């Protein structure tokens, strides 16, 4: 596991960072990565954005749901809207968040602080995590004035490795969240928002972990 951490430069970053929230995040992460996989607290996340480019587009909402002992904790599932500069414009068609709904939203700075607090002591999980992480890292370095490197399990990458191991040739779209869920007999969710997709991603992860077999022997490296 230390290899993963070194690769991210986590030790180095933890020592260097000034921001207390980010310092805590690194410290807790280094600790929990030593646990057995089944014992690692995780946090499934999903974002809605105004577009796909982290340099220009902004985060609209964040959904999170913690996973403890292999079970999603609905009591601690949360959904936060984030206020943005300008209008949601055309992207409202996809995520359904309208400008007037953003009135009670958190400011980006509040949102990033809240997110770092929630992430503390959890291993992040997302479907196609590089995109979500890019937005979060961008947002944090912008609003908390401190560069950050986040670590997340990518359920898409887990699935891709599994399919490749089975020597399956996969077609376009087979790694999409809905398609992956179908392979595990998970229900179809028609509604979409950051929270529902975070739940959908979390469920996929526990299904993937169940498929890997003996829970006691798995370590976090099995997910990377």
């Amino acid at each position: 596991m230390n290899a993963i951490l070194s690769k991210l430069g986590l030790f180095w970053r933890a020592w260097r960072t000034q921001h207390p929230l980010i310092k805590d995040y690194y410290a807790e992460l280094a600790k929990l990565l030593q646990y057995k996989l089944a014992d690692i607290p995780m946090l499934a996340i999903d974002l809605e954005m105004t577009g796909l480019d982290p340099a220009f587009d902004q985060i609209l909402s964040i959904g999170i749901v913690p996973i403890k002992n292999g079970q999603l904790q609905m009591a601690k599932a949360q959904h936060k809207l984030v206020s943005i500069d300008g209008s949601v414009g055309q992207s409202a068609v996809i995520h359904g968040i309208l400008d007037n709904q953003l009135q009670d939203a958190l400011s980006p700075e509040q949102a990033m602080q809240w997110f770092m607090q929630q992430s503390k002591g959890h291993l992040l999980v997302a479907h196609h995590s590089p995109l979500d992480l890019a937005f979060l890292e961008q947002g944090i370095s912008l609003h908390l004035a401190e560069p950050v490197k986040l670590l997340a399990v990518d359920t898409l990458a887990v699935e891709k490795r599994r399919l490749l191991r089975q020597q399956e040739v996969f077609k376009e779209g087979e790694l999409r969240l809905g398609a992956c869920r179908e392979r595990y007999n998970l229900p179809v969710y028609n509604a979409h928002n950051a929270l529902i997709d975070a739940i959908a991603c979390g469920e996929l992860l526990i299904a993937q972990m169940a498929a890997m077999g003996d829970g006691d022997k798995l370590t976090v490296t099995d997910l990377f």
Partner: protein
Amino acid sequence: MDASELQPISDFLSALTPFDSLSDAALQRCCRALTIGYYSKASGYVPLDEDHPQLYIVRTGAFEVRNQDGELVDRLGDGDYFGFPSLLSGDKISNRIQILEDGLVYHLDPDTFNFLRNESREFDRFFNRAYAQRMRHQGRFKAKEMATTNRISTLMTKQPLTIDVNACVADAARLMRDNRVSSVLVIDNQQLKGILTDRDLRNRVIALGHDGQLPVHQAMTTSPTVLNSQALVFEAMLLMSECNIHHLPIIDDGEPVGVITSTDILRGQSTQPLLLIGEIERQSNLESLINVSKQIPLLLQNLISADARAEEIGRVLTSVTDALTRRLIVLNQQILGEAPLAFCWLAFGSQGRQDQAACSDQDNGLLVAGEMDEHAQGYFEALTKAVCQGLDSCGYVYCPGDIMAQNPKWRMTLTQWQQKFEHWVKQPEPKALMHASIFFDMRCVFGSASLFDSLQDHVLANTKGNDIFLAGMAGNSLQVSPPLGFFKKFVLERDGSEVKGIDLKHKGNALINDIARVYALFAGIKEVNTAKRIRELMQLNIINRKDALNLADAHEFIAHMRLSNQGYQYTHNETVSNYLMPQQLSSLVRHQLRDAFKVVHDAQAGLKLKFTRSF
């Protein structure tokens, strides 16, 4: 937080009894309290934490509840619950939950569960009732018989015939004659004193030389065995056979309210088929027979909705067909006169196997004892034409392949039939065999049994142990495989772009029929009904016990699915077909169906190994 945020979960729960009785607020609180877990078949059982009982709500997947002895208590699929007995009783968890198919499960903690029970009476009552049922139904998957569940009150004769204790036996006999019953209750001041039956009149009056003036109380059976009207029919049957009696007075609150006889029970067990067959026997012309035959689809529906076993349904429907056929032969013989030669009416295919269902066509032939002269030719032609036409009018349409007794080709003497079969057996060309296989499922519906035996014995003597012929038959039956794809997914039939579903008949039951036929011909078994063939093969140790039971179960399950699907199509005014859409099934049933097809697949592999040498 907005109520709609957990919409997929609240939508699911609010469609479930008893969660549908909860207020919105209570439902939201419930959604918020859930934890979500996933259970994989590979881990075998759901790990249940003794110290933390929870309510488990199945979201997807399939599970089996088994008690300490490993007996099946319940099967669960989407929207079913487990774990509630120990939540309610506080007892230790005693059942085990076996995972049949991977699935997502919601967990609800005891505090929220109890909060919801307080919140909604219906919620509370639902789980209490489910708990009571679970306790009662420990053996529910063993056998489901109507006799065990029905109450006596549904079958008994109400307002029973009574007579005063001081009347004479002649009066009693007259009363029984006038009301056409076989017993009368003897009462004194509204109180039951005894029962007087036909048997008592014979044994205690006539046999002893008494005359009709004997008072009833000297002839009656005193303090007879009685039951109350809420007792189960099953208990009445038990009592009757234990005490060797045929009449039971029914007493509620000390007063006689009815009588139940063994005939009542018999009638209650299979009312409609027996009545229908009785009615067929009574009809004296074709028109009235056609009229009676209109009840057959209804009979099928009743049997399906009564959840009868598919094998029984097939046997019942076939016995109706047999009765119709026999009645048509008898009626036409009344017109045409006695037959010049002894003959047998042969039934082939599904009627032969006794597994007819909706919309069967006729497959039959005629076996005549000796050479037919011109007069006999004419007689049998007229007879068979009339019977086949009659069957057609009664809903058994003409056979598209023209395998009917009215076709001179299938109206033959014993020697001709024997030669025909010999030809098939000795020159087993695949194409010819495919068409001929239905002839090997033959049964005599009318006529001389010994004549039929001489044909069947001859055929079986030829097929028994005949490797080349059996290889041909086996090869034929392996042409079609069950509808399972590579990853055990269902393969659906398509008609152009339209998806028709799984063909349960041709890709399911027909394959099992084929397998059983090859083995039966190999062993020289006379039975043609598939279930009975399998049973006999098991007894002869030709198929091992486990495989035979699996195959018989698969046969029953697929046939049951086909019938209930047809029942559904019929009641929804859809075209009745053999096609089933797997999406309409719960994942539990899908799982079972997959297993059934897997059994067929394995049996085919066994058949291939035993009879064909192409490997």
